[in-house]
C-alpha cells in the first residue's frame, strides 16, 4: 500500500517538475521575442530623429544636396526593409550616410555651434548606443533561452513541445564588419 503512495508522490513530483520546466521555457522564449521587438523601438526612434536633423543642417548648408539625398534614400530603404538581412544592409547604409552628413557639418562652424544641432547630435549618438545595447540584450536573452533548451533535463521537455533554438543577431555581410568609410 505504502509503495503505491510513494510511486504516486514521485509521479506527481515529476509532473510538477515538467510543468515548471515548460513554463520556464515559455517565459524565456517570450523574453527573447520581447527583446527583439524592443530593438525595433530604438530603430524607430532613430528614423524619427533624422528628418529633424536634416532640417537643422539644411538651415545652414542648403547646397549640400547630395548628402541629403543619400540620407533620405537610406532612411526610406531601412524603414521599408522586410527581412532581417535586408534591414541589416539598409541600417548599415544609413549609418554611413549619417556619418557623411556629420562630416559635412564640420565645414559649417555656425551649424556646429547651434544648440539644436548639438542636441540632435547627442540624441543620435545616444540612440545608436541604445540600439547596440538593445541588440546586446536580445542576444543575452537568446543565450539564456538556448541554454535552457539544450541542457538536461529541460531539453527533453523542449523537444517534446517543439521549442526551437533561436538565432543570435549577427552581422551577416562580411563587408559590414569593415569600418564605415566617409565619402564627400
Amino acid at each position: 500500500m505504502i509503495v503505491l503512495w510513494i510511486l504516486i508522490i514521485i509521479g506527481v513530483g515529476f509532473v510538477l517538475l515538467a510543468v515548471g520546466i515548460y513554463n520556464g521555457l515559455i517565459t524565456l522564449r517570450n523574453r527573447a521575442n520581447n527583446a527583439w521587438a524592443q530593438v525595433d523601438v530604438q530603430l524607430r526612434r532613430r528614423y524619427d530623429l533624422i528628418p529633424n536633423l536634416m532640417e537643422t543642417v539644411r538651415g545652414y548648408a542648403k547646397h549640400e544636396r547630395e548628402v541629403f539625398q543619400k540620407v533620405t534614400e537610406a532612411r526610406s530603404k531601412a524603414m521599408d526593409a522586410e527581412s532581417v538581412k535586408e534591414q541589416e544592409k539598409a541600417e548599415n547604409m544609413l549609418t554611413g550616410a549619417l556619418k557623411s552628413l556629420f562630416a559635412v557639418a564640420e565645414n559649417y562652424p555656425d551649424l556646429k555651434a547651434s544648440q539644436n544641432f548639438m542636441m540632435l547630435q547627442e540624441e543620435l549618438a545616444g540612440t545608436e548606443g541604445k540600439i547596440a545595447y538593445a541588440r546586446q540584450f536580445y542576444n543575452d536573452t537568446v543565450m539564456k533561452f538556448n541554454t535552457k533548451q539544450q541542457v538536461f533535463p529541460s531539453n527533453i521537455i523542449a523537444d517534446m513541445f517543439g521549442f526551437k533554438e533561436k538565432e543570435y543577431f549577427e552581422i551577416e555581410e562580411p563587408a559590414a564588419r569593415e569600418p564605415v568609410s566617409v565619402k564627400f
Partner: protein
Amino acid sequence: MYEQITRNKWRSFFLILFFLGLIFALSWAFGELTGWGPQGLILAAVIAVPMTFGSYYASDKIVLAISRAKPVQKIDYPYLYNVVEGLAIAAGLPKPRCYVIDDTAPNAFASGRNPKNSVIVVTTGLLQKLNRAELEGVLAHEMSHIKNRDVLVQTLAVVMVGVVALLSDWILRTFIWGRGRKRSRGKSSGNAAAIFVVIALVLAILSPLIAQLLKLSISRKREFLADANGALLTRYPPGLASALKKLSEDKEPLEAANKATAHMYIVNPLKDIKGKVNKLFSTHPPIEDRIAALEKM
C-alpha cells in the same frame, strides 16, 4: 567575466551562510545558558528587523537627502540620461532616476529598495573628469548594484550584525547577572559545563567583531561582483578599469559623504585607507585589485 561573476556570487552566498551559522551558534549558546530556547533568536530578530527595515524601505530618499543630491532633467544632462537609459536597456531594468551632486570630487553611487525605486547619483566632478567609455563603465557598475539587489543584501548583513550584537550582549549579561534556571536541568558533568561556558563567553565577546568583518567581507565581494556584472553590461572592461585608475589618483575627499554613506560609493569617498589592517575593515576592495580583476577579463 562569467567566472568572476559566479565566483563572487558563491563567495557572498557562503559568507552569508557562515554568518547565519554564527547567529545560530550564538542563539543556541544563549538558549542553553538561560533555558530560553529559540525565544532569544526570535526576540533579537524582532528587534533588529524593524530598526533596519525603515532605512531599507526609504533607502533611496534617505541617501539622497544626506548627500544633497539634486534631481536632473534630460535637458540639463542629456549625455548622462542617454548612457543610463542605454545601460538600463542592456540590463533589462526600468530606468533609474538620475541625480547629481555638485562637487568636483569624482564619485557615484546607486540606491533604492528594488529596481523600480532605484536612483543613480553622480558628482559633477565625475561628469567632467571621465570620458564616455569610463563613464559608461562606472554607471554600468552602479546599474549592476541595482540589478544584484545589493541594497537588500547590505540590509540583510546589517540586520545580522544587529542580531549578533544583541545576542552577544544578552549572553554577556547572563554571565554578569547570574545564570538563570538552566542549572536545575543539570548538564552531564562539571567539566563539560565549564568548557561550554568558556566557549560561549569567547563567542559572545568575539562575535560582534566577527560579524562586522563578515559584513565588510560581503560588501567587498559584492563590489567585485558589481565590477564584473558592469563589465558584462558594457562588454568593455577597460572602460571601468581606466575610470578606476583615474579615480584612485584623485585625492580629493567628497564633502557630502560621511562614514554612514561611504560604503555605497564606487570608491571610498573619505580617502583614508592605508595599511593591511585597514583592508579588512574596508567596504571596498583595494583599487589595484579591482583593476587587476578587470584586466584579466
